[in-house]
């Protein structure tokens, strides 16, 4: 019999329960069931990184995770990055550096870049580019994105 599964998880530090089909990706569950639409779908096959979320302590592409795999785990999405109305400094740096155009890739870049800065506060440009190799942007040409992240890395150093 085809039965939905009850998943208990923590999303952005809040206990969240949802009911999903085993075949639904975590991306679909977040967007279509939980209503957190900040996480974007680009390619739906793991290549573009726009669906990046933090699962426990690692960034993953949520299009390649099943919703049922979230049982008992901790997820951080783009909605969990700002503190209320206070933008995270990475978000601010993306704005001041004009590091986005259409914006589809931006949530993924910010979640991924924050994970880098959380584990390594002072990455150099090469490290930033390597870490973000799994995030694609069709608009900006990357330089402004790398500049925004570098600025935050420099701030951490200062």
């Amino acid at each position, binding site marked *: 019999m085809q039965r939905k599964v009850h998943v208990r998880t923590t999303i952005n530090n809040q206990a969240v329960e949802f009911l999903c089909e085993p075949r639904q990706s975590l991306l679909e569950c977040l967007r279509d069931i939980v209503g957190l639409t900040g996480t974007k779908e680009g390619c739906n096959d793991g290549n573009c*990184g726009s669906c990046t979320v933090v699962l426990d302590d690692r960034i993953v592409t949520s299009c390649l995770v099943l919703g049922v795999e979230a049982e008992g785990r901790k997820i951080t999405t783009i909605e969990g990055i700002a503190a209320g109305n206070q933008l995270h400094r990475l978000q601010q740096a993306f704005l001041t550096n004009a590091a986005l155009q259409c914006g589809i890739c931006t949530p993924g870049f910010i979640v991924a870049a924050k994970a880098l800065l959380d584990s390594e506060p002072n990455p150099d440009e090469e490290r930033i580019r390597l870490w973000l190799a799994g995030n694609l942007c069709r608009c900006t040409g990357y330089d402004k994105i790398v500049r925004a992240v570098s600025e935050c890395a420099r701030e951490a150093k200062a």
Partner: protein
Amino acid sequence: MKWFDYAAPKTLSEALALLAAHPGARMLAGGTDLLVQMRAGRKPADLIIDIKNIAELNELRYERASGLTLGAAVACYRIYGDAAVSRAYPSLHQVASLIGGTQIQGRASIGGNLCNAAPSADSIPLLIALGATCRIAGAGGERVARVEEFCTAPGKNILAAGELLVSMHVPAPRPGSGASYLRFIPRNEMDIAVAGAGVAVELENGKFRSARIALSSVAPTPLFVREAGDWLTGKPVNGESIAGAAEIAKAAAKPITDMRGTKEYRRHLCSVLTRRALETAVRRAQEVQ
């Protein structure tokens, strides 16, 4: 994706029982191959068995005497994040950091890379060169196979119905040994190898005591070129010997022409990549000597 059921057994025996009861089941490790293929309508399954909660498949243990036990579901980031493993096997550290990008490495396992049996799989030539073996479990018991016997055709492996890969074992690095994997891709990261070479050498008194060489993306399966390594045995460690082995590897390659490259180009790459990988492996061997 078509409907399927999901199970996440906590023990190996539970997983094997599920597998025996559901011939149409498929194993889920990191899902970075499986979910892409299922979404594309390939690899239909009525049950997905998530194997990440099984202790044996999560084991990552290095001991100086016995070598490395690498659980089939261990994700790449755990390999390159493990200082002892990275020190003992710099080549494995290297391969775990070049599969996909950061997000993929948070999920993708070497066991999945092997079971998926792509000709281009980056970890397989290195596992072959390192002399790794596979621990396979089924309802009837366990068996061990060498990695070079594991892949049988593109996407096909030796696992029989009801069997799964538990772990891989990599022998302890011997004094004077070194290994490396090198691939060619048009981008710097996140691409499928046009060709790749995995090599391991053991040096003694300025000579090759032994060598093993395997190639990716130039045959229907990852290709073990036993004769290239055998030819090196007893030869002096120098550029001439290395170039000779690289030519043998090139001659063994059976590439096809596709959008990533022509067969002539791929053959050329085999010799260049084998030579460079051997140079790195020799350097590593000399560093630990």
